[in-house]
């Protein structure tokens, strides 16, 4: 207790489907907190339970120390920005924004002042008398933000607010959302399936899957120290290797056996021993790629492979390198790049190395998670047979 917003062991089932399954979560005041996961993972249901559109089958929801589990939606001090914006089509921009304060029966003059202030914040003062269908997608989005913020909610809920916008607009709105959060200083609860949005905006992220929370942490924690193969695969690209713990060496390091590899040294914060099957996840940018076998200390692992594909991306080059049964994705930044340097091409033999601290040991592993890496984020739900 004592947290600003708290879900305490909350569940919501639809028939056999456990949309939200025993979720506990605490959000601090003023925080930009994201719920991230593939579609169907329960993030929107969780948001709707906070908004009051769904009632949990079990568990409690607390806001600012009060139990709001049974409170109807219109009495909660939270406001939502809907994915579809849900602007009232029969009302002008001005009247849309004034909707909440009018229902709260605030004095006319005060409403007028606040609406003007909001219009200025979203830079739509000159469009105040337009109807929603005369606005562009980005403008509608901003009106939806103003309509919610004018009520001074304790928490602002954002349900995939940028999903309907095109890429350029999305990037602009990302910056605007960040600015607005800094200006108004209220708690934001942001639901998205887009890891890029979540990473760039959030103070902390909760990664969800199958109605459960997989991991909560800052963007860096989640990226650099994923707790499960799902998180590792869902946030950015990664390579998985299957092996067994051989022995613990010196402090927190272990030696692993991976079939076809020389002994692999890996950071082992979990202190796993004695032939426990594990999976290690190594991000593509953690590898170094060499033409000659490098001579490195014992904390590095060096393997030999063959280049199968080269994709030049401008800021980096992506290589697919075959090592035994594994097809490893490697990102290489172009440090001190020389055009006349002999480039690495298809079918070249290369050496890959990585540091023991760059691999992450995971106990849990699901086949489906590996497929995630090959699937664009918006298709993740379909790939796993969910809607």
């Amino acid at each position, binding site marked *: 207790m004592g947290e600003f917003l708290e879900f305490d062991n909350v569940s919501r089932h639809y028939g056999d489907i456990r949309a939200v399954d025993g979720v506990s979560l605490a959000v601090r005041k003023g925080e930009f907190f994201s719920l991230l996961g593939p579609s169907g993972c329960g993030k929107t249901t969780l948001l709707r339970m906070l908004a*009051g559109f769904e009632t949990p089958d079990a568990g409690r929801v607390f806001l600012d120390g009060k139990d709001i589990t049974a409170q109807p*939606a219109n009495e909660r001090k939270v406001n939502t920005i809907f994915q579809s914006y*849900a602007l*009232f089509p*029969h009302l002008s921009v001005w009247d849309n924004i004034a*909707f909440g304060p009018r229902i*709260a029966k605030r004095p006319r003059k005060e409403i007028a002042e606040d609406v003007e202030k909001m219009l200025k914040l979203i830079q739509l003062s000159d469009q105040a008398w337009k109807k929603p269908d005369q606005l562009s997608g980005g403008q509608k989005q901003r009106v939806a933000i103003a309509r*919610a913020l004018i009520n001074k909610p304790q928490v602002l809920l954002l349900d995939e607010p940028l999903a309907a916008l095109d890429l350029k607009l999305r990037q602009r709105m990302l910056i605007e959302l960040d600015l607005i959060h800094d200006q108004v200083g209220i708690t934001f609860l942001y639901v998205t399936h887009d890891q890029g949005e979540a990473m760039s905006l959030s103070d902390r992220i909760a990664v969800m899957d199958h109605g459960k929370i997989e991991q909560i942490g800052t963007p860096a924690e989640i990226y650099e120290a994923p707790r499960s193969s799902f998180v590792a695969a869902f946030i950015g690209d990664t390579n998985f290797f299957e092996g067994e713990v051989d022995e613990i060496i010196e402090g927190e390091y272990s030696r692993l056996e991976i079939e076809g590899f020389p002994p692999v040294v890996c950071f082992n914060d979990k202190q796993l021993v004695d032939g426990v099957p594990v999976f290690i996840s190594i991000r593509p940018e953690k590898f170094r790629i060499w033409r000659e076998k490098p001579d490195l200390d014992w904390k590095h692992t060096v393997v030999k492979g063959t280049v199968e594909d080269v994709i030049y991306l401008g800021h980096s080059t992506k290589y697919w390198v075959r090592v035994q049964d594994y097809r490893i994705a490697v990102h290489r930044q172009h440090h001190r790049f020389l055009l006349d340097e002999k480039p690495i091409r298809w079918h070249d033999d290369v050496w890959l190395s990585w540091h023991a601290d760059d691999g992450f040991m995971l106990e849990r592993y699901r086949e489906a998670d590996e497929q995630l890496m090959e699937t664009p984020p918006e298709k993740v739900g379909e790939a796993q047979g969910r809607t």
Partner: protein
Amino acid sequence: MSGRPRAPSGTEAAPPAGRVEWMVSLPSLVWLTVLFVVPTLIVFAIAFKPVSSYGGIGAGWTLETMRSLANPNYPAIIWRTLWLSAVTMALCIVLAVPAGYCIARAAPRWRRLLLLLVIVPFWTSFLIRIFAWKVLLHPEGPLKRVLVALHLVDPATTLLYNAGSVLLVMVYTFLPFAILPIYAAAEKFDFRLVEAARDLGASSLRAFWSVFLPGIRRGVMTAILVVFIPALGSYVIPDVVGGPNAEMIGNKIAQRTFVDRNLPHASALSTFLTLAVLAPMIAALGLQGRKGRQPIIEEAG
């Protein structure tokens, strides 16, 4: 919606945009002119003809018939026609809006069943349904006996042959015509807007009133028109379940035509009724046109 081809894009000489539209709408235009506009004008014309002694239409023109509409009997009947139609319309809307809302929100399986139930009465002849009401409301009928047995009604009261029975049967008859357009509008309504209103602090009632109702206003306007206008011209219902004290203009027109064989008088009454319906509609359309909005019945366009 407008199928106007863009002007300079065609490589060959496409027919001018106007001609295609004319050709498409010509059949319905001819139909309407021959079978609706011309007969209406003929009725208007007959109103200014004298009666021949054999019950036909005499030669020459006269204003006599129009003047006779000032007959002191008429204001009462006109007033009754207006208030019965207005109350019928109001009751139909009040009943149809929640009905349309519920059908639109029902699960698809239930929705089909509920819609079917709305339409089922149409499978029985209109006349048979009206006579069924006569049986139900009859002094010896089942409804009366049940109400008397429950001490809800004095044995002396009559359920039939008064304005109340006409109103009841009119609401019964016109309700489906009100439910269907309102349901059609509610079905297209984005119910996330109601959620948005709730989110912004509106009670369920307030959300219904300030978001749902404006959202289906076109359906409501259509329902008002398709109930009010036919109700004004009701003839069979007041004839069967109403008595001499529940007559409407329709009954008078029929009486003048079939009993008195006075076609000019019947025409004068019809002319009055038609103009009484048209005038407010034209005024409403004009008013909307000035505001630059679309006409009331968008779908009918």
